[in-house]
């Protein structure tokens, strides 16, 4: 097109070609070097001794138990965080009440706090030396170094994802559609089901995907409460560390690849949703 232009000036929103080249190269180079290359290397390292060897490393009792535990923890965490996240965003975005900004800050807490500290908190509360430790032991309830502790830690670190995704969206949409539904005779529950939920479904989907990725990948908090019992309380990320520390690097990278693969699938799903439903997603914000 530029050949047809009568003037040789650049448009007001165009940058110099050299500047454009440098900026793009910087961005692509940075992302390639620090984000893409490591992921590729993980897969390369896992397949170093052949695919069969990598598959064997995954299809081994301890690894299988770790995969199962991660999936169970995510399967329990996700529904809970969807319910809590939607409830919290609904309350914050649609109602005014005292302590609202405090609640908003509280939701960000898991972002701000180091996961290790989060794990320590549960140890402090439920551990044998903790507040409820002796009581729990007498009642024969095991929380720390068992599935409940792992679920609690995962719940803590993955809580903000759904709420953080939904609050701005719901605030943006306002309450008039809900008011309209009520004035047309809908009950509170009908309003939520037929008006609020359909309007936030894409945001909710994103939140759930991110929450899931975090839940399966969490290391720090889970590491503190799990106790690293092989074949029993090791999740996938913990199992990767154990294998690596045992100098079983192929096994470590094979499990790491599986973990990375799950994350990539999550991202691919998100991209697919964005591409497939671009119109509807835009419409949810418009109006």
């Amino acid at each position, binding site marked *: 097109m530029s050949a047809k232009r009568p003037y040789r000036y650049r448009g007001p929103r165009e940058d110099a070609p050299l500047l454009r080249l440098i900026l793009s190269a910087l961005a692509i180079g940075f992302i390639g070097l620090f984000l893409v290359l490591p992921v590729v290397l993980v897969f390369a390292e896992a397949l170093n001794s052949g695919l069969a060897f990598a598959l064997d490393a995954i299809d081994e009792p301890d690894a299988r138990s770790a995969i199962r535990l991660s999936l169970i923890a995510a399967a329990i965490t996700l529904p809970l965080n969807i319910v809590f996240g939607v409830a919290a965003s609904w309350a914050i975005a649609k109602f005014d009440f005292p302590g609202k900004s405090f609640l908003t800050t509280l939701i960000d807490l898991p972002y701000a706090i180091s996961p290790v500290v989060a794990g320590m908190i549960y140890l402090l509360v439920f551990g044998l030396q903790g507040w409820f430790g002796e009581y729990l032991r007498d009642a024969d309830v095991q929380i720390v170094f068992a599935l409940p502790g792992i679920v609690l830690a995962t719940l803590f670190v993955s809580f903000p994802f759904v709420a953080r995704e939904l609050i701005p969206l719901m605030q943006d949409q306002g309450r008039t559609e809900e008011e*309209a539904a009520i004035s*047309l*005779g*809908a009950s509170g529950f*009908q309003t939520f089901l037929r008006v609020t939920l*359909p309007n936030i479904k894409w945001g909710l989907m994103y939140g759930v995907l991110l929450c899931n990725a975090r839940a399966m990948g969490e290391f720090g908090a889970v590491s503190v409460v799990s106790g690293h019992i092989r074949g029993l309380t090791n999740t996938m990320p913990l199992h990767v560390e154990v294998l690596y520390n045992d100098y079983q690097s192929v096994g470590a990278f094979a499990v790491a690849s599986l973990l990375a693969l799950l994350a990539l699938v999550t991202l691919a799903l998100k991209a697919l949703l964005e591409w497939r439903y671009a119109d509807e997603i835009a419409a949810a914000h418009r*109006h």
Partner: protein
Amino acid sequence: MSLVIANIAKEFGRYPALKGVSLTLPTGKFVALLGPSGSGKTTLLRILGGLEIPDAGSARLGDTDLLAMPARLRRTGFVFQNYALFRHMTVADNIAFGLKVRPRANRPPKAEIAARVETLLELVQLDGLGGRYPSQLSGGQRQRVALARALAIEPRMLLLDEPFGALDAKVRKELRGWLRSLQQRLELTTVFVTHDQEEAFALADLVAVMNLGRIEQFGTPDEVRRAPATPFVADFIAS
């Protein structure tokens, strides 16, 4: 069934929005709440629709105590300023909403709902557009969908918040005349909020001029124009 509003007061925080408003609206009339922004007209409308709860006062429609009823049971056809159409539903689903959410015992069968939607679409001159989404309609069309949706629940009265505020001048004039004749045909008590005195005088049977949470004057457009009751009214309609 006339609508009798008595001594309605409402404060937001410490800011008094309504300071004891009383009005009697005869059945089937088209009434304008006219006033500058901050005069409390929208608050009064929202109280009638059950979307705000007043601090004091009463509102009775015939012998029903409106304020004792939650918004969802009042059947006040409320049309919002920006229409508040359900963006994820088609036009037909928007209109059918009020019927579909009824408890099973008095919910019309599907075929009947569909027939009612068709009738309403014709009434608001949107035949054939039932499958569209709100974002695919013009402002004037959205406004008529909002109206059809409100009419679908067979409302006791119609409440319109700045019904023509978001439309351009030409569409506004057209819709105005059309709305007026529709209201007369349905003989539906209608209250609408506006800051545009020309619009209020052209459309309404009765005009309530509001200022700072009070009613300054209530009368026919003629009365208000010929004999402004207070300096504020005289000043407001002169502007």
